[in-house]
């Protein structure tokens, strides 16, 4: 039987299959942005071909399909979601557009104002009010509610978000509102804040609920189509969707919390990184995914991916637990230019896929990082994309020469400069991303993946004092590959604000018990396999604003001194993150959180490659690394386990090229990946 993962990216749809022996097969098909499910089916056809069978036969022998997609992300970026109406507490209808008083781009005083996802005339105040202690100040006024619903109907909204103040304490007004909507506006997509994110802080809750309503109808339609196409093609097994929190969930659940898929694509990369950490026994990794327009940085600490709750996509806050991924505006297509002060700047503007870098020969006229790589000999113009799309070296030299003229240097020095500047920017980005999470990158291993990372990783590692770099053979499809090894996951969170001194222990126990029971019930509907619950508490000092997530592993909720134990666990975590804690201060518990995990059988390990005969160099070429030097070229796909390659060298496949600098040593792992020791 096969297990298949399909990851839809902006340009390519990556497809990976693993069979019961652990053998991995992968391929790519063109993405189809209008309806991503077409590209998914094309990818499956290509994969079947790769395996020497037809698609129906492959799908008949497949027992799980995992899918990462960019439907929600694209809808947000391109502003193509549903027409959403918002029902909220009277007197507070502008929370969404107030954005807590913050405006993007601090020093841009001429930035045009953006239209919020729900314009003001579609935000209706409803007479009702809950107090902070859960008492009803004003009962839900049905006349006011019905009037608002009539307004939404007249405006023909496609989805309704409902978010009342303090509804995390008691959801009865929101539930009654859903009933009224079902009665007076049947068929409309409804999203309740108390279901999506029953958590204090109204801006985060409203924004998340609105995003959910904005992308929900689209996700529902898309997944319905995908399910239909797969069924027509002969697939009868489950389809699991990659979620922003790094786990997977069935289609029905994905439609319910559609906002949880905005990081569906990159989440696969982290799942892949987690698997790499385990396979190579490198528990502390900096996954670095460099594509054409941007680079994603994240962290694996002690084998685990970190979650954050303050993510924003396209300026829209989504406060669901999501993998902590930082995006930098630097990629292979980033444009190099000379600023008004005569200094070289690279990015954040990108030549994108069209026209792309000058060397693509599609009319690009400005220098990019990729053009610099061609001029410096890092990329072989003839071998790019396996020879399918030769690069135009002369065009690259032309744009770099022009850039050099502006700087008063030659094309080679300009190209080298582009690499130095972009590497410095990315290195600073990695430093900042790691400091933000309280870790020192020097203890970490750099994991390079995505098409463009291979040329930069060795120099990046040197700049941040990282000694070890890994580049997997599946580097270009790591996201899809990672999705094969994920688990079912359900995140439940509820605010429960309580001081340690007056901790209401029975209420807290009942809350955790309720969250855990409901999580297990839900998971029981998704899997027959083992189910695990992980409890944690989000806590902070009273004066602070950022909660930290404190795992309750090993803390007995029935212990008589529970408050003291919670305090100690919080202090340990606070110290780990921020180097200190305060002896004389009690923390406050803000949110109770339960993660329910349904373990799926892990894919078998890939059969280890025999030592075999080391791959021969396919030739050598001149590369510029401070001076021109000969670098041998090796085919990535044919390296033998244990083979050692010393820099300077280039290791190439159709989708990625890895550059070793003098002194760097790459050893091929049993998986035939590169494990590179960086020269001092």
């Amino acid at each position, binding site marked *: 039987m096969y297990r298949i993962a399909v990851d839809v990216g902006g340009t390519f749809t990556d497809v990976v299959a693993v069979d019961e022996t652990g053998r991995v097969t992968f391929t790519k098909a063109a993405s189809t942005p209008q309806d991503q499910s077409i590209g998914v089916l094309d990818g499956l056809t290509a994969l079947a071909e790769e395996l020497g069978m037809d698609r129906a036969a492959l799908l008949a022998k497949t027992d799980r399909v995992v899918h990462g997609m960019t439907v929600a992300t694209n809808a947000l970026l391109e502003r193509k979601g549903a027409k959403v109406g918002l029902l909220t507490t009277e007197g*507070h209808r502008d929370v969404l557009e107030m954005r807590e008083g913050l405006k993007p781009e601090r020093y841009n005083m001429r930035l045009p104002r953006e239209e919020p996802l729900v314009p003001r005339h579609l935000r209706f105040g409803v007479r009702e009010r809950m107090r902070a202690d859960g008492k009803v100040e004003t009962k839900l006024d049905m006349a006011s509610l019905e009037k608002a619903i009539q307004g939404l109907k007249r405006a023909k909204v496609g989805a309704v978000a409902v978010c009342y103040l303090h509804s995390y304490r008691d959801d009865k007004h929101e539930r009654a509102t859903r009933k009224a909507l079902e009665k007076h506006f049947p068929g409309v997509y409804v999203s309740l804040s108390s279901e999506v994110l029953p958590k204090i802080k109204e801006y985060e809750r409203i924004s998340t609920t609105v995003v959910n309503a904005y992308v929900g109808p689209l996700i529902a339609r898309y997944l319905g189509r995908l399910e239909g196409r797969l069924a027509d093609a002969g697939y009868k097994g489950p389809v699991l969707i990659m979620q922003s929190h790094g786990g997977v969930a069935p289609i029905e659940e994905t439609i319910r919390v559609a906002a949880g898929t905005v990081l569906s694509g990159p989440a696969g990369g982290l799942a892949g990184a987690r698997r790499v950490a385990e396979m190579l026994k490198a528990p502390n990794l900096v996954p670095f995914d460099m594509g054409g327009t941007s680079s994603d940085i994240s962290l694996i600490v002690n084998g685990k991916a970190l979650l954050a709750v303050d993510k924003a996509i396209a300026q829209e806050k989504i406060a669901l637990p999501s993998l902590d991924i930082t995006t930098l505006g630097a990629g292979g297509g980033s444009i190099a230019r000379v600023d008004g002060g005569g200094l070289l700047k690279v990015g954040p503007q990108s030549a994108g896929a069209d026209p792309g870098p000058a060397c693509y020969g599609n009319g690009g006229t400005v220098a990019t990082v990729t053009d610099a790589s061609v001029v410096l000999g890092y990329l072989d113009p003839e071998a790019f994309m396996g020879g399918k799309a030769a690069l135009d070296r002369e065009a690259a030299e032309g744009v770099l020469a022009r850039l050099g003229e502006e700087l008063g240097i030659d094309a080679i020095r300009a190209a080298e400069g582009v690499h130095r500047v972009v590497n410095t920017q990315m290195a*600073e980005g990695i430093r900042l991303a790691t400091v933000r999470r309280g870790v020192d990158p020097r203890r970490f291993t750099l994991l390079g993946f995505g098409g463009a990372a291979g040329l930069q990783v060795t120099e990046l590692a040197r700049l941040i004092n990282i000694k070890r770099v890994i580049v997997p053979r599946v580097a270009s499809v790591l996201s899809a590959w990672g999705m094969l090894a994920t688990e079912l996951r359900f995140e439940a969170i509820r605010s429960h604000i309580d001081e340690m001194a007056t901790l209401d222990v029975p209420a807290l126990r009942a809350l955790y018990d309720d969250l855990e029971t409901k999580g297990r019930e839900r998971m029981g509907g998704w899997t027959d396999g083992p189910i695990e619950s992980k409890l944690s508490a989000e806590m902070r000092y009273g004066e602070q604003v950022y909660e930290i997530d404190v795992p309750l592993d090993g803390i007995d909720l029935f212990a008589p001194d529970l408050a003291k134990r919670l305090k100690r666990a919080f202090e340990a975590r606070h110290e780990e993150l921020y180097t200190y804690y305060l002896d004389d201060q009690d923390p406050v518990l803000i949110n109770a959180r339960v993660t329910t995990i349904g373990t799926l059988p892990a894919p078998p390990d890939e059969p280890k490659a025999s030592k075999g005969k080391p791959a021969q160099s396919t030739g050598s070429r001149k590369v510029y690394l401070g001076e021109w030097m000969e670098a041998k070229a090796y085919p990535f796909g044919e390296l033998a386990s244990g083979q050692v390659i010393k820099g300077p060298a280039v290791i190439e496949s159709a989708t990625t090229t890895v550059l070793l600098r003098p002194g760097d040593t790459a050893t091929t792992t049993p998986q035939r990946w590169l494990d590179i020791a960086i020269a001092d």
Partner: protein
Amino acid sequence: MAASKKTAQKAPKKAGKNAPDPITVSVVQHRLVGVVDEMGEAMLRTSFSQILNSSRDFSTAITDAKGQLVAQAEYIPVHVGAMPSSVISTLEAFGDDIHPGDIFMLNDPYFGGSHLPDLTACLPVFEDGKLLFWAVNRAHHSDIGGATYGAYNASATEIWQEGLRVPPIRLYQNGEAREDIIRMMRVNVRHPRDFLGDLAAQIGSVRLGERRLLEFIDDLGVETVAGSLDRILDAAEAETRAIISGWKDGVYKGKGVLDDDGRGNDDITIRATVTIKGSDMTVDLTESDGQVTSFLNSSWANTRSGVAMALTYLLDPEVTKNDGTMRPVKILVKQGTIVMPDDWAPVTMSTSHCAQEIIEAVVTALAPACRDRAMAGWGKRLRIAIKGQDPRTKKDFIWHMFHARPGAGASPGGDGWHNSGEWHSAGGLKFGSVEVAEVRFPFFFKKHEFRPNSGGDGRYVGGVGGDLEMVVETEMPCVANMAGDGARHGPCGMAGGEAGKPHRYIMHAPGKRPHVLATKHEGIPVPPGTLFEIHAAGGGGWGDPAKRTEEERSKDRLDGFVTTRAPKRNKRA
């Protein structure tokens, strides 16, 4: 006396023979920005009081050995241009007596500070015994002693009533804290726990800066790094000059007007005469009104910062911001005016007011020279701080209002942003969650929404301000302090646009007639059950209102930002 604080250089110097190439300079610049960002991030995560970790009222910077700003993290615009003065004052105070292991501290506005709550830590960075850099961290502390809590004392007539003055002092020596001095400071502030926590975060931040700077000097070599600094400043200067030289030569006049000084004197005015000649710019503030008896006076560092903000707002947003940016600008001030007061005058309000009026004076002056860059006025700051006891916990509390933000000014780029705050923070100050505020304070927020009809009309309209109705639910009376401006003068319109509506703050005490609050008032008794009704200013409009399109007008009405019936166009035509 006219004090010329900075003379302009004509053009960037030609690089010498051994000067680093432009690529290396660019690399050094990126690394410096990386260092200040890391210093800022560490501060954000480790500071203790809400004004720092939530509202981010702090900045981190690196200057060269002489105190020229070479990199600054982009947190609060009002700190731009004010930090170098701290290093320069420290250098003047200590001369050669500056050694590895030292950390200096100051807050005194007459010795390199802006106002007393802003404490600035300066750490000299040495390599091989040679002073190369300063790592600087400025942070707004929630209390600095003085006659009233929270530093903003509308009654103060002298700086000594505003809090503890700290001229440049040596806080750390040989890497060790001078505990006696820290003890002295901690007994002078109201919240020693917050104070010490925030101070520790500042020290951690400048030390991190030092470590990172040394690492990168080690990587690139001391000569390369040191040699790149002048080029970095030259490059920013060249970028700035390239833009200024596109502005029409001429002598331009502008003004910014404060409501009053809280002592019965109305319309305190900042006057700027700005001369553009080629790529040089002179800002003459000498005709500004004389210093006032209340806390609106602006120290030199703050005045320079006001001019720097105006300039950076008019440049392109991506232009590098360092001391090179300010080189084309010469600022003229006269001793004894509100922008250069004698060294005993109170100043605490000045980082908002008159800093904003300095911006207003410079931008209105320059609008005819660069119409396509000049933005309309942003809302002014008017703060309420309430002190009382929470009946639920019996604990004392102090609440600073950040809700009901005023609107942003419109610009040639389009309509102003709603409730994005003041000109000096430019959408960078965050207000807290209403739900969290109701949990933490004995307040009930009946209403917190946009204030319709508050944005100034124009081709592009100003952003609206916020409306707030909040009930004080204590059992015992509270006390409120008001500090700010803008209840008479709304944010200015630009290029034919109209001014935004000014602030209107009303207090409804039970059984009493509604009372419009003055902008500068200390010690207002607040009985339980009092309702505060707050209408924050809208931003100014930009361009001729007759040119706003009918579609835009009908959208304004559809969304209820404008609720008046007759469109302005008919009136004007």
